[in-house]
């Protein structure tokens, strides 16, 4: 009973974190394509607004993050319980809170404090002078 259970566990443990040539090649080619698309969009100025270009290249970066996590780091290939994925999700949450929280708070501070006159606020709130 015990023997058979140890033998069946083994291949699963072995597989975690091990890639194949195919997976590395796929990850490499996809990463190059995504990098070149982002580079081309910016240098050829294929965008109409700042918000548009930021959302395009950030999406491409996040896509490439997942490409590399899956094809290079083989995240999610481990057997249950998936501690690596759990820790990654926790870290990603902290990262998002720190980055977007900082940007949000500091923009808000700039908006409310940087201008000695309140003309900006008047304009945004559509208050007639």
């Amino acid at each position: 009973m015990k023997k058979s259970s140890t033998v069946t566990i083994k291949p699963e443990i072995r597989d975690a974190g091990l890639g194949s040539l195919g997976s590395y090649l796929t990850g490499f080619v996809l990463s190059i394509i995504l990098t070149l698309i982002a580079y081309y969009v910016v240098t050829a100025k294929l965008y109409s607004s700042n918000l548009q270009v930021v959302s395009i290249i950030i999406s491409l970066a996040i896509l490439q993050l997942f490409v590399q996590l899956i094809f290079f780091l083989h995240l999610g290939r481990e057997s249950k319980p998936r501690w690596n994925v759990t820790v990654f999700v926790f870290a990603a949450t902290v990262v998002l809170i720190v980055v977007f929280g900082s940007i949000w708070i500091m923009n808000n501070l700039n908006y409310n404090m940087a201008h000695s006159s309140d003309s900006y606020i008047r304009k945004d709130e559509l208050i007639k002078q």
Partner: protein
Amino acid sequence: MNNEAVALNSAEILEQENTNKTMFGFWLYLMTDCVLFAVLFATYAVLHKNTFGGPGGAEIFNMPYILVETMLLLTSSFTCGLAMLAVHKKQRKALLIALAITFGLGLAFLSMELFEFRHLVVEGNSWTRSAFLSSYFTLVGTHGLHITVGLFWLATLGYQIFKNGLKQHAVKRLGLFSLFWHFLDIIWIFIFTVVYLMGVS
């Protein structure tokens, strides 16, 4: 005989479980490093418009140069993956070649980055110029520091394998190194996007 085989198997499994624990510990370290970089990214995002009359990103970033740097690091991440494949096939020579290429590409990346830094400082745009440049040098420099440490680590590992052959602990350390190297490549994607691409757009 059957019992012996099982005993050997369980020793191997124990070894493997130990390796898995070490890998997990190292993964935890990488995730805390992620938080460190997140703080630096947040600082950069907040300060990148505070140029204090100095140049902004669009004036000082040379995009084709940065693209070459990015490709060098990406390729070294790929050859690091090839090295891991060679480890598991026990091909020592292929492994050493892949590690040497990884090292060369990493070193080329680091040299290009240091050359870029030198160029900025010579032109008077050092970290003391403005809040934008302080946060830029801190973020990109911290990544460069990680790359430097990685190169020392890789050189040591390569020497150990060259000298002593593919021992079990060398295989384990190579696994950890490949995690570290792929992680640095992922951080660079975000530096490339947030600092350079968004800086010139």
